């Protein structure tokens, strides 16, 4: 199984390399899009090259997702400790209540409150992304059996040591699954960020829709779909590294 893991990582690295090469080869895009849409006078979005657009998009997602992890995981840990246990029901309830909110509505609400640009987009992505991360952190930590914890305390571990060396490793897979969901949602919602001036891969699509240029739309849509699928597979593989249960053989 280790071999299979290694092969998967090699495959994903190669695919990532291919993706970067593909978005960097402007000539190839221009030739293909010209062939597909001979009626358009211009086939590449003039504001920025594809590489820049992808980088803007990735930056938005990395920025908001790092904030999400930095705040969400500690919050999830705190409400499962004795000092924060009073807040567990409300925090858990809020994570499921909040997930009913459509991400696009959260993004839209950020504009009247904060304005246009990158910052409201990052804040909206961060807030929405918190929900699955906090939820899964709580679920992962609560799934650690009391027997295992008792054994850890019996070995003389402090609460802190038990958290770091027993609870977190056992919960890691579920927590990573939450981060995975959050990142994929953020990649999708960041597309809409283009409407409020945050740039990214949504901007050629929006420009294409406004100017009725099919080539721009494809220029944004294809790399965005590839980026999302690639990120999804990378994160799924990362999760598999932390399977400590019988499933590990898979």
């Amino acid at each position, binding site marked *: 199984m280790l071999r299979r893991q290694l092969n998967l990582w090699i495959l994903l690295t190669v695919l990532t390399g291919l993706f970067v090469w593909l978005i960097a080869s402007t000539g190839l895009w221009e030739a293909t899009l010209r062939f597909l849409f001979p009626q358009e006078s211009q086939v590449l979005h003039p504001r920025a090259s594809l590489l820049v657009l992808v980088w803007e998009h990735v930056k938005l997602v990395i920025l908001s997702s790092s904030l999400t992890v930095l705040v969400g995981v500690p919050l999830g840990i705190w409400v499962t400790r*004795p000092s924060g246990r009073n807040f567990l029901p409300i925090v858990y309830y809020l994570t499921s209540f909040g997930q009913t909110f459509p991400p696009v509505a959260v993004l839209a609400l950020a504009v009247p409150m904060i304005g246009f640009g990158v910052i409201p987009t990052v804040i909206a992505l961060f807030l929405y992304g918190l929900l699955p991360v906090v939820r899964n952190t709580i679920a992962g930590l609560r799934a650690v059996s009391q027997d295992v914890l008792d054994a850890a305390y019996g070995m003389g571990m402090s609460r802190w040591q038990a958290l770091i060396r027993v609870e977190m490793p056992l919960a890691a897979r579920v927590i990573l699954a939450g981060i995975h969901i959050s990142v994929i949602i953020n990649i999708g919602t960041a597309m809409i960020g283009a409407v409020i001036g945050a740039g990214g891969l949504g901007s050629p699509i929006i420009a294409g829709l406004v100017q009725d240029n099919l080539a721009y739309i494809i220029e*944004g849509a294809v790399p965005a779909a590839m980026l999302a699928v690639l990120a999804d597979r990378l994160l799924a593989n990362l999760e598999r590294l932390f399977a400590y249960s019988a499933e590990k053989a898979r």
Partner: protein
Amino acid sequence: MGRLVTRDSVAISGSLIGLASLLIGWLTLKPSRIAAGTSLNLFESIGWVGGLTVLGLWLACLILSLTGKKERSAVTLGILANLIVIASFLLVGLFSGKLLEGEAQIARVSLGAGVWITLAGAYVVIFSARQTLRGSTIWRNVVSWAGLAVLVFLLIEGWFQDISIMTEFSGREERFLQELMQHIFLFGGSVAVGTLLGISLGIWATRSRRAEAPIFFTTNITQTIPSLALFGLLIAPLSALSFAFPVLREFGIRGVGVAPAVIALVIYSLLPIVRNTYVGLRQLDPAVIDAGRGMGMSRAQIFRKIEVPLAAPLVLEGVRTASVQSVGLAAIAALIGAGGLGWFIFQGLGQAAADLILLGAIPVIVLALLVDAIMRTIVRVATPKGLGKGNQ
């Protein structure tokens, strides 16, 4: 267990949030629809008497939540929090009209962050009161819904007509209704098709080993693709199709518009429904099916009388997930000309008109919450008695 809980820290936090909300702007007076406004503090917004009333109510909440966590104080605390909600919105509605007196016709008053944060604080207190009132169903319902019911009543009665979102609404009633119906048609129609297709695919995946892997592979991949990208990917082939066969245009099949939106929404609703149908059928206890066979049931009877009712709650849970998700995705479909409530959001963003954005965004959120609540009820009703809760 940890140390004994002596204080109601959640209610205390709620009260502190509420008190903090009194320090920031409650109403914003704008010279016109898109101009930046001046933020008015609590007393400028709702007057000295009104401001002191809200302040007093919040202080009472804080004191009560500091003194203990008993059943009776929870009822009082819950009622207090509901009073805060009702009083704040009564006052805000009343004073928005007064503030506009003597201003130009195009001046507007909108709700500031203070009102929303007071609302949030009040519901934190209400949540905590609900937790304590586990035993009494009547009080729990009163505490949970009283404030909200009054707000809905005030809204219908036109109490908030001088607040900018409602000003934006008036004059657009027809358009609003039309886009709302379009939104419901978009997500309802797609989820209906997605349900039929998803259940069939789910059953197929349980019956055929060969179909299982490709079905899950495709639905998983498509679920990952960003919605705007999928809309975009559908536009090009559909417009090529409509150019090749102009007949199709008579059925509304064009590059942009309803066609790509519905196709994309159907695709997105597949995964939750296929997955839950599959799990619902696979998790059945083989002994139950054996029992059915032993009673002389035919294959069709077993399917109809055992498998369908036992798997139904999980399948419907999948439909719930798909519906809530589709309400949000249908809002994005406005970008490709499919209409719906998203139209207001994107028009508002285009004109930088905050009230127009809210006129789209708030109804979308309310619609998602309503659909969620309705589907949860359906799931509960469909769960056979012997099956316990059936889902989380």
